[in-house]
């Protein structure tokens, strides 16, 4: 095995073996959406920020099986870091994202050292506790964060010095789409890499992973840290687009909704996260506009519907249909 051989085969496998079709379709749809809904760019941008957040949850939960209800901790920390950086250091957006990623990763690393030792309910509770502690710290550090009033005074410079953030949200849209694509590509590489396979193995059977000599705990901390970086980018992006960070970046609801979106789309596949977020956000948006008082009924019914009828998420629907029509190619003879 020669060293030069690896990148070559990597590329070849990528082209031959990996269907990039869903990705191409999604990107095309995003571009079409831009022209189809020129008045809803702000909403589309927000959806993309959520997609990024849910993607990061997909890596952590969908791939590695780390059941967390505290993903907002990473998002919020990225948001505050990017916000503070913009206010006090530099208003350059791209550097801000890097700072957000670093902050998210740092918190994930530190908290992951504890969290990755836990499972089940204990892990859920620990992850919630981390988030609540972060929120209380942000609330107490009022001089720095603005407390409940929010961190204000974020004014962004043009992206790459060229594109100014505008009123209608065109720059915001393309900026968010670019960041989403870059992060998606990174996650794609990570999930296809040995560590990606490795954490899927941990999700399937941690005991077996130990038995093949894998340092399970270290792998989980690593993947959680990568997830933290992506969640941090999502938070940073939100902070830059909204130009304000509030304590609600640490809201429990955010973690819970991300979970719903992920399961809705289909956990363990990156495009599942994208589809789930899109469907949830659009249903939420329409339901909340049609009936701002009672849309929670619809969301509740939607959630129950997923659990009972499409447990594998929207991506599982084709298989479910095949099952119905009795033409399931996977079925055992």
């Amino acid at each position, binding site marked *: 095995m020669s060293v030069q051989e690896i990148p070559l085969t990597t590329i070849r496998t990528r082209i031959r073996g990996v269907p990039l079709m869903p990705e191409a379709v999604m990107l095309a749809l995003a571009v079409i959406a831009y*022209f189809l809904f*020129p*008045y*809803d*760019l*702000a*909403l589309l*941008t*927000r959806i993309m*920020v959520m997609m990024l957040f849910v993607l990061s949850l997909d890596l952590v939960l969908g791939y590695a099986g780390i059941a967390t209800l505290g993903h907002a901790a990473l998002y919020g920390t990225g948001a505050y870091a990017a916000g503070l950086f913009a206010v006090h250091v530099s208003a350059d957006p791209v550097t801000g994202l890097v700072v957000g990623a670093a902050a998210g990763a740092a918190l994930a690393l530190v908290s992951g050292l504890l969290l990755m030792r836990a499972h089940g309910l204990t892990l859920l509770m620990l992850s919630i506790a981390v988030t609540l502690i972060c929120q*209380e710290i942000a*609330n*107490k550090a*009022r001089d720095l964060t*603005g*407390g*409940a*009033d*929010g961190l*204000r005074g974020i004014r962004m410079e043009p992206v790459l010095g060229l594109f100014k953030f505008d*009123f*209608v*949200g*065109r720059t915001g849209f393309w900026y968010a789409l670019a960041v989403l694509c870059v992060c998606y590509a990174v996650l794609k590489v990570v999930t296809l890499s040995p560590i990606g396979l490795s954490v899927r193995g941990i999700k399937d059977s941690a005991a077996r992973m130990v038995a093949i000599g894998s340092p399970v705990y270290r792998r989980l901390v690593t993947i959680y840290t990568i997830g933290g970086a992506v969640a941090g980018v999502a938070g940073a992006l*939100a902070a830059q*687009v*909204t*130009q*304000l*960070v*509030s*304590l*609600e970046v640490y809201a429990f609801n955010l973690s819970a909704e991300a979970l719903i979106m992920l399961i809705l789309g289909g956990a363990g596949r990156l495009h599942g996260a994208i589809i789930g977020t899109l469907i949830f956000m659009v249903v939420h948006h329409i339901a*909340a*506009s049609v009936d*701002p*008082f009672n*849309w*929670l009924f619809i969301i509740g019914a939607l959630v129950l519907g997923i659990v009972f009828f499409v447990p594998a998420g929207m991506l599982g629907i084709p298989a479910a249909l095949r099952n119905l029509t009795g033409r399931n190619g996977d079925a055992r003879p």
Partner: protein
Amino acid sequence: MNNLVRAALAAAMATLCAGACWADTIKVGVIAEFSGPFAIYGKQYKEAIETYVAQHGSQSGGHDIEFIYKDVGGANPDLAKTLAQELLIRDRVNYLAGLTFTPNALALAPLIEQSETPTVIFNAATSAINKQSPYFLRTSYTLWQVSTPLADWAYDQGIHTVVTAVSDYGPGIDAENAFKAAFEKKGGKVIDTIRMPLATTDFTPFIQRVRSQAPNGVFAFLPGGPPTFGFTKSYNENGLAKEGIRFLGTAETEESNLQALGDAAIGLTTAFHYSEAHDSDVNAAFTKKLGELSAGAVANWASVGAYDGTHLIYKMVEAAGADGPKAIEAVKSLKWESPRGPVEMDPKTRTLIQNVYIRDVERDKDSGRLVNREKGVIATVGDLGWTD
């Protein structure tokens, strides 16, 4: 590609401008909470707006006025800004309104600055918001506005030592600072300042701490709903009133949750700008119509904020149609008789100059309901928290 973008933009901007220039229907976007833990606020706003419309018609200055409601679900600046963009760009609203929470209002500042959209804040009570954009108008109150007169009044009543107990978050700390500054200026002594975590469910420890210091009064500030409920219950159960420790509050006895407090609330003293029981014709007409339109509706600060905010919007539309800067100019010194009493817009802070009343909770003999009975006006002030 680039040409395509430009063409699309041109089309978008053209429709945008057309909407603004030709509208004979003036649209008002209301961003408020219609779901989640604060859904009551959105409900109060909507009922008050509908009451105003029922009383004054759906037209002003020859323009039809249409309200579009958007649910922001709580403090959520990301969503608030998205909704505002949607309202401004797609629905082409000419005015924005609502805004219960400070972060939501702050997130809109850069937007309304660019679109020159007058934005009427029904609640968000942090002084600094209005500094962020000249297009903000506020029909609620600020914490300084009610806390400072309360401190002065309390001292004059012979309450010379006070313990402050506030929820440990921005507004609570503002209230503590406002009260403390005014009270000490008068010569009073704040012997202890307690900050209670927002997540507190059992207030007994704090009440015991107040009790052990035997002050003349306790100044409290808590967010509406469960915390206020828990605090006033504890205050009552632990016999502080009997020991002569007077309760001094602001929004704690607001009407939407007052009946839920029960007899525990009787005798609580608050300084505030609005009581449902305010004795005036305008208020009587308002509460009567409100009750007719929505059975069981109560009027509180949120209702009156929205009602006066709607009034302000009607006046702006009448004077300037859809012209934002002109509209602001037209109402920035406006005076009118509100259900809360006489009010006047302060051109500098764009917050109301209004009466602050001292009230006690009593059980109304006729209706059997708990009410905030006004005992007198203790000040007529604007936003005292404004700093240049």
